[in-house]
Each structure stands twice: as structure tokens, then as C-alpha cells.
């Protein structure tokens, strides 16, 4: 039995049927579903705490969140998402054509994280910290969790950008990265509505 069947399998797991969606997209979609549940739980926990606190939110004496500046920043992130969708469309025609749109998505995404960090510095100066009560704890937890996801997405975009420039960008990689980035982008307005408004 040791001599049989050693020659099979050019690539492990290579499908012998035509899948509805590629492995990368299916795997990423499942991962995103789990992530959605993660953020839903954070938002639900925050909502419960906020309701049980009663009265006004943020609690009296706590700093006000930069609602307007973050609204502008939300637009930056959405623009990045649109650029990413365009990159996906273009790469369907030719992989090299997606480079500029990818670069734009990357720059806008990085700008979003940088502006968020700038706002955090201001809030910390005003005395809003993780330990200053549920308001600060939940703010940094939820927005921080999103920021970590955004940073991961930016790294994926940077890799895609570098590969596109050198002409080595695989369609499956781009499809997975695009799906993930769309998740990060579309998640943000929901969190903004829940946490800031």
C-alpha cells in the first residue's frame, strides 16, 4: 500500500468541480460572518450598558466625542471602499490596471486610521481613558477593535498594491482582500452610528 497513489495531487485541495465561489472568497465570507457576530456582541453589550445607565449619554462630566470630524473621516473610509471596488472591477479586465485604484484605496484607508489616531490623542488629553468609566471603556474597545481590523486590511492592501505593481497579483488574493476591506468599510458607519450618535 505504500507504493500506490503517491503520484496524485498536483495541488492539495484543488477542486475537481466548478465551485460557485472560489476558496478564498468562501473562506473569507465565513470569517467575516464570525467577525460580524463579534462586533454585534460588542455593540449589544455597549447598548445594554448605555440603557442601564439611564439618563444622558455620554454621562455628565465626560468629554463629548468628535462627532463632526469623525463624520468627515467616515467619508474618507467610504471613498477608500469605493476605490477598492473600482480596483476589483478593473483587475477583472487586466490585473495591471488595478494599480492606481489600489493605491488610492490604500492611501485613503491609511488616512482614516491616522485621523482616528489624531482624535484619540485629543480625547486622551481631555481625560477620556479606558479606566474612566463605561463610556471610555466601550469607546476605546469598539473603535479600537475596528482600528485593528482596519490596520490588518491596510497591510493586505499594501501587499496587493506591491504585487499589482510587480504584476504578481493573483485574482483570488485580490478577491479575498477586497471582500475583507468592504467589510471593514461597511462596518464603520454602523459602529459610528452606535458609538458616536
Amino acid at each position, binding site marked *: *500500500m*505504500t507504493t*500506490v*497513489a*503517491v*503520484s*496524485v*495531487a498536483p495541488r*492539495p*485541495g484543488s*477542486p*475537481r*468541480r466548478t*465551485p*460557485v465561489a*472560489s*476558496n478564498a472568497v*468562501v*473562506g473569507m465570507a*465565513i*470569517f467575516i*460572518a*464570525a*467577525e*460580524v*457576530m*463579534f*462586533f*454585534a*456582541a*460588542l455593540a*449589544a*453589550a455597549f447598548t*445594554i*450598558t448605555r440603557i*442601564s*445607565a439611564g439618563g444622558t449619554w455620554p*454621562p455628565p462630566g465626560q468629554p463629548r466625542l468628535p462627532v463632526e470630524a469623525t463624520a468627515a473621516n467616515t467619508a474618507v473610509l467610504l471613498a477608500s471602499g469605493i476605490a477598492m471596488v473600482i480596483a476589483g472591477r478593473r483587475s477583472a479586465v487586466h490585473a495591471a490596471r488595478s494599480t492606481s485604484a489600489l493605491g488610492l484605496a490604500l492611501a485613503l484607508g491609511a488616512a482614516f486610521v491616522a485621523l482616528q489616531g489624531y482624535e484619540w490623542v485629543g480625547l486622551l488629553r481631555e481625560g477620556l481613558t*479606558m*479606566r474612566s*468609566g*463605561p463610556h471610555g*471603556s*466601550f469607546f476605546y*474597545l469598539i473603535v479600537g*477593535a475596528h482600528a485593528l481590523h482596519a490596520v490588518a486590511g491596510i497591510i493586505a492592501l499594501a501587499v496587493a498594491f506591491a504585487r499589482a505593481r510587480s504584476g504578481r497579483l493573483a485574482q483570488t488574493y485580490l478577491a479575498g482582500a477586497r471582500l475583507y476591506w468592504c467589510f471593514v468599510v461597511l462596518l464603520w458607519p454602523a459602529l459610528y452610528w452606535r458609538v458616536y450618535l
Partner: protein
Amino acid sequence: MSDAHAHHDEGWVKKYLWSTDHKIIGMQYLFTGMLMALLGGYFAYAFRMQLGFPNQPVPGFGLVSPNEYNALVTNHGTIMIFWVAMPVLIAAFGNFLIPLMIGCDDMVFPRLNRLSYQIFLVSALVLLASFFVPGGGFGGAWTAYPPLSSQAKFSLTPAGSTLWLLAVALEFVAFLIGGINFVTTVMNSRAPGMKWHDIPVVIWMIVIASIVFMASVGPLVAGAVMLLMDQQFGTGFYDPIRGGDPILWQHLFWFFGHPEVYVVLLPAMGIVIEVIAVFSRKKVFAYKMVLYTAFATGILSFFVWAHHQFVAGIDPRMANVFTVTTLLISVPIAEMLFVTIATLYGGSIRLDTPMLWAVAFVAEFLLGGVTGIYLGSSGSDIYFHDTYFVLAHFHYTFVPIAIIAVFAGITYWYPKMFGRMLDERLGKLHFWLTVIAFNFIFIPLFITGAAGDHRRIYDYTKFPDLARPELQNLRALATVATVVMLSAQVIFLYNFFKSMRSGKRAEANPWQANTLEWLAPSPPPHGNFAELPTVHRGPYEYSVPGRDLDYWPQSDPPEDDAAPDAAPEAAR
């Protein structure tokens, strides 16, 4: 690493520790799970001895202190669920069986698969490390309710509780990666011709369980991050004095914790149904019904969690709703048990060891299910809450799942895993000792629980109304039975390792089963099949009238004389 072994074809490290082969990874999970099971069993031995024969030194452990007792109980539960039931039922069987049973050569993400096991191994090591830090292992029960778990001044384990939480979180990451792999592989890599309804039940069950796990684990990870911050960064998410809410953890924990029961139950049920069909030589009764009820169970399992919190101060109107959903979920589970009985009915039953385990699962799980009705009803639960009745109830579900069904699976697929047959005589001896002893552990505990034994008591001699001899004798009986059950596992280990070297050589299909894994040689080589199979019929075509053989492998091409076009259709 590979340099040292460059002169070999494949070095030992590369082949067994750094492999991306799904079978090796499955075995890694299996052996890690078995090691952890020994540890969990040892913990149970130590604290059962303290309960049965209080305040005497335990042979092989020494005197059990109250803090050690708490850590032993907590980590027994944690290990048995997260490091035994999950890795063996889902990861080991899932990894080993999925590519073989759907007829492909490996998982779609083999390197992610390897990463999954490596993270799992790290999580086990972190948990083991937590026993040796100052203050000892975490002792706040496997449910880790705050404030006991969130503040060191209550738990007395400043480092142990954080390491425990970290280990659990890492373990979830490992299974998240594994689950993505399982579902994607089954979706995209099935053999040509294998339609949804040609997938064996056990594969469906592992897939549904993975989906349920991945959908429920996010909230617990969110809760765990918050708990970790409460422990280490001074936040107050669960601290009512600072505007937090301790009940919040219970919701997040049980929103995962109850689906988790079905995450381990469904694969166990799948194994049992698989074994019962093969050893009854009969088609699974109502295959599609099993499938749809499994999905229904998965969905319903997300709406029962608050039955763990009936006395935690939740709104009684909410308790009513959760009573209804809880009793409702027993319907699909009962339906699956009836399916196994209906499959047995009129079959040509062969009572080999795997079949004994499978039938025992049905009998013992039934007891666990029936006693759950008292606990699911919010009224009677007020009395039973946190007693040994609860403990006996969930052991009557978890032992059949994590022990009995696992043994059914191991004894059934052992020839495929190792290419040898297990010793039947030793197997049956091990079976009877384990199952009889199991009942002698937990039936007495139903009685002590109904008499008022609280779960978290270290020393009953301090409670005059519970220290009565008739109750203490039952506790001692349960302890002795625990020792017998654990000792019986020596027979299994002997059989397991001895047969690996000197058991009778197994042919490719020793049980005359239909599913694709039996087409591959035993044990399957790298790449699994000499020629990747094509599927022509459903997995349970046993005793088909008009055929000489009483089985009909899924990959056998249709016979020409019997209307070639109609054959695959009629088989469904």
C-alpha cells in the same frame, strides 16, 4: 528544521509535526485530545476522592486543599469541553474524515490547517502553564462568572485566571481557522457526482457544528476581551460599582455556551448514525429529515441560552420565553434519536464494538435529555439550580458525546486510521466496564442532587443536613465508580497502542461500508486515493433488494443491466 533531515525523503519532524496532510493533523488533534483527556480524568479522580472520602490524602495527589479543589473542578470542565470534546469530535474526526469521505486529496487550505493545530497546541500549553504560576490555576468554574473571574481579590489567582482566559481565546482562534477550512472544503472539493444529499451524515454534522460554532464564538471572544481588560487593565465592564454589569458576561458566555453543546453533540450524533447504519446493514431512516432537523437544531440553539440564568435575576417573562425554546429544542434531538432506533428496527444487526458504543450512546444520551426537561422549566429549575442534579444531567449528555460517541468513532475508523484491527475481546471488556461504571457515577449523583447537594461544595462534613451517611455513601459510590471507569481506560490504551503494532491487518473496507473513505487503502497514503473517486449514489445503500452484496459503495459505477440511467436516481 528540514535541513537536519535533508538526507531523508521526509524528516520525522516534517512528516509528523510540520505536516499539512489532513490525516496527520487529524492524528495530532486526536493524540493531543487523548492526552488532555487523561489529565481531565486525573483531575476528576482527585476531586471525586475529596468528595467521597473527605479530607484524606488522595493517593497520587495528596491532600486536596480548597483552592486546589476549585482549580481542579474548573479545569476538569474546561479541559473536557475545550481540549477534549472539541478537538477530538470536530478537529480530529473532521480533519481525518472530511477529505476522505467527500473524495478529495486534502483540505482546501492545508497551511491554514497546520496553523490551526499549532495555535491549538499553544493554547493547551498556555493552559498547562496556568497551573504552575503563583496562586495556581484558575478556580472560578469553567463558566468564569465575574466578579469571581474578573478581580484577583476574589479569585485569588491573579495570573492563573488570565492565562486560563488566554488559553480559551487561543483555542477559539484555532477552531475558527479549522471551521473555515472544513466548510470551504465540503463546499468546493466534493468528488464529482456528490450532490448535497450524497454527503454522509457525519460530514454534514461536522459542517453544521462548525457553522454554529463560528456564528456563536464571536460574542464570547468579545466578552473574553472585556474580561481580560477587567483583569489586567483596570476597566470595569463587569463591575457594577463602576457602571458595568456582571450579568452581561453571563449573556455573552451562554450565547456561545449553549450552542457549544450542540457543536459537540451534532458530530457525535453523526458518528453514531454512521455506525448504526453500517452495523444494521440498513439505509439511514429519513436521511433528509436528519439533515433538516440538524439545521433546525443549529438555529434553535441560538435562542435557548438564558435557561442557564433563570435564577440570575433575569426578567421572569424572559424566563418563560426561554423555557419554551428550551423544551422546543428537545424535539429535533428526540427526532434524531428516534431515527437511530428506526434505523436499527428490522436491520441485520452486528454487535461489534463500534456498534455497542453507538447503541449505548442512544440509551445514555436519552437519560441526559429527559432529565434536562426538569432544568429547562424555569419553575423546577429554581430548586434544581446548581445542584448535583444539574451536574449529573449534563454529564449524561457530555459523557455520551465526548466519551461514548468518540469511542464509537475511534473503534469504527481505527482500521482506516492505522491499517490494523482493534482486539474485539478487549474492546468489549473496555466497553462494558466503562458504560456500567459511568452509570454508577451519575445515577447516585442525581439522587444526591435532588436531596440538595450543591455543586460547588468542597467538604460536605461542614453541612450537617447533607453529611448524613446515606448521602455520603452515594458520594463514595460515585467516587469508586469514577476510579473503576478511569481504570478501564487502561484497557483501551493497551488495546489502542498494541493493535497499532500487532493487530490483525485491516483490508481497505473491513466493515463493508459504502462511504468513500473505505475505498482508500488502510491507512490512506498521502493524497488518499489511487484515483480520485466519482460518486454515483447516496451513502447508505445497504441491503438493496436484487443485489448480491448487502452494500453498494458510493463510488461503484452503476450496473449496466439494471437500467443505467435510472440507477443513480433510484438510489436516492
